[in-house]
């Protein structure tokens, strides 16, 4: 059933919000080290799909197989995180009252994140090295000791991406990373994600088609809770069904 190269394989996933099917018999899979972009009109179920994978939402039916066939459905969010699924939320979700460094330090993957281990814990030189590297990657080295709440919107998004990377996920879920970013920040974010995809699989939800063109290899189009098309940006844009869905609505994303 599962192809050996798949890190994620969602089958027949349905999420039912009191009769409204946010996901309707959705099938979706991602290969190792793939950078996949998911697009679709508002309400298509994109965020719900990520919520199901990371354990925030429980599907009514279906399976989500991760890595070597572990079913994530029914597991709680902390355990899924420990297995190696990292989630970057749409709105920057960082710890405003801690410094950038402390934000990253809390996110480092550690053997135990229980109360007593954390109470006694000190960062090892290797961990500090790793945090410095990530600071470099996300371009926030000079802000390491600033209060995270004082960063710009774009910097907060990068910080959260950095926090998620430090958990060393093998699958990174990123929800609309460039919303509200300047053109320059958008481009930098694209480079960052492309670089990161060398080490882990990444699923990005995005609306900004310029950005999608910059980073995407394979695009999945979601509408009304199901995958309607998958392929390169050109293929997807040429697809009649996709055009219909987008053009049928008031605002066109192209």
């Amino acid at each position, binding site marked *: 059933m599962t192809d050996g190269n798949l890190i994620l394989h969602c089958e027949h996933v349905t999420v039912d919000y009191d009769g409204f099917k946010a996901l309707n018999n959705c099938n979706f899979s991602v290969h190792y080290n793939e950078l996949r972009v998911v697009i679709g009109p508002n309400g298509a179920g994109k965020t719900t799909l990520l919520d199901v994978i*990371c354990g*925030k939402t429980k599907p009514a039916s279906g399976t989500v197989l991760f890595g070597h066939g572990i079913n994530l459905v029914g597991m709680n*969010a*902390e355990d899924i*995180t*420990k297995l190696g699924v*990292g*989630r970057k*939320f749409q709105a920057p*979700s*960082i*710890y*405003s*009252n*801690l*410094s950038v*460094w*402390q*934000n990253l*330090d*809390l*996110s480092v*993957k*550690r053997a135990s*994140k*229980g*109360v007593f281990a*954390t*109470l*006694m*814990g*000190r*960062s090892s030189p290797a961990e*500090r090295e790793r*945090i*410095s590297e990530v*600071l470099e990657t996300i371009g926030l080295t000079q802000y*390491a*000791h*600033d*209060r995270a*709440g*004082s960063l710009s919107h774009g910097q907060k998004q990068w910080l*959260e991406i950095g*926090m*998620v990377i430090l*958990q060393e996920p093998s699958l990174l879920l990123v929800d609309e990373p460039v919303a509200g970013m300047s053109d320059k920040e958008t481009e930098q974010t694209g480079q960052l994600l492309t670089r990161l995809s060398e080490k882990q699989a990444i699923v990005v939800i995005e609306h900004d088609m310029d950005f999608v063109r910059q980073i995407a290899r394979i695009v999945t189009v979601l509408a009304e809770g199901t995958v309607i098309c998958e392929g390169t940006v050109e293929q997807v844009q040429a697809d009649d069904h996709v055009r219909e869905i987008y053009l049928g609505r008031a605002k066109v994303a192209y």
Partner: protein
Amino acid sequence: MPEPVVSHQDSRETVSFYVLGFLFLVVLPLLNVVPSEESWLHVSDFRLNQFGKFLAFAILALGLDLIWGYCGVLSMGQGVFFGLGAYCMGMYLALQIGKESVYGSELPDFMVWTQVKELPLFWYPFKSFWGGFVGALLVPVLFATIFGFLAFRSRIKGVYFAIITQALAYAAWLVFNRNETRLGGTNGLTDFKQLLGFRLSDPSTQRGLYLLTVLALGAAYLFCRWIVASRAGKVLIAIRDSESRVTFSGYTPWMYKLFVFVVAAGLAGLSGMLYVPQVGIITPAQIGVLPSLEVVIWVAVGGRGTLIGAILGAVAVNYGRSVLTNYFPEAWPFILGGLFVVVVTLFPDGLVGMLRKMHARKKTPTPVIKAEGRTAA
């Protein structure tokens, strides 16, 4: 790369700690003993005893500050844990009265007039000092563990948790008021005579209790500071800032909440245990909804999210009360309520926040990161 250096706020807090420590541990007791009673410098036995009570309250405030100021979980039932600690010590003290009681019975007075012939079983451990001492810490801790487990495990948060704890305070008040509870009903426990052989009416005993309270507060402060400075302390702040992020970083927030809730309960028990012999009475009126709410006001006034703020708030509000109730006894609840409204709307960081702002204005206006507390703006 080094970890973040200790911020200026931390070093300033250390200085405040030493200054307050010196003031309460050395200056106040010396002013009580050395100057003659006519001297304006003289601190009366009454005043010293009163400060002992305020400093016991400060321990209670520290606990609430940990859970509310740092972790963002508002508990409106801290009075219950304070009460459990206070009653445990009170039961020991009540059994120490012995034949000196009004009716000359070995049983506490209230048992005589409510026709209890034999000491109820649950009173037995409190015949010994260690029973009272250990009970005053363990009973609140155990109770908080069970209550906190049920509440936090079920993901009860925010205003719902606040309401549940307030209901707990009300329920406790009702239970302690009943004569059938065998804890003295509305009148509580009082008329204590001695503690480990020391007469409670003796000024030197009260002086000793005062010093013990200062030391206990110092230890409680250092313990809280250790928690706050650790990585777990950062997790507490992180839970306040973004609980879902904490979950998706592999932590289990409810366990941290439970931990800090239990620590707060232990501190409340310690506070109650020190309060009873100094004040000489514990009644249900001290453990209900209102006293629990007052703790919230102390911490808000002092500045939540800073440990020194909790101590300052507890001492300042209580001192304010003792002065103002002399002049306007009727108006105190209004003053207290007004104070809370003013602080919450105009000075969300309390006294400590005001002091920091004044200090920041004097110096160059560079933004400083705070290791703790809310935004400086």
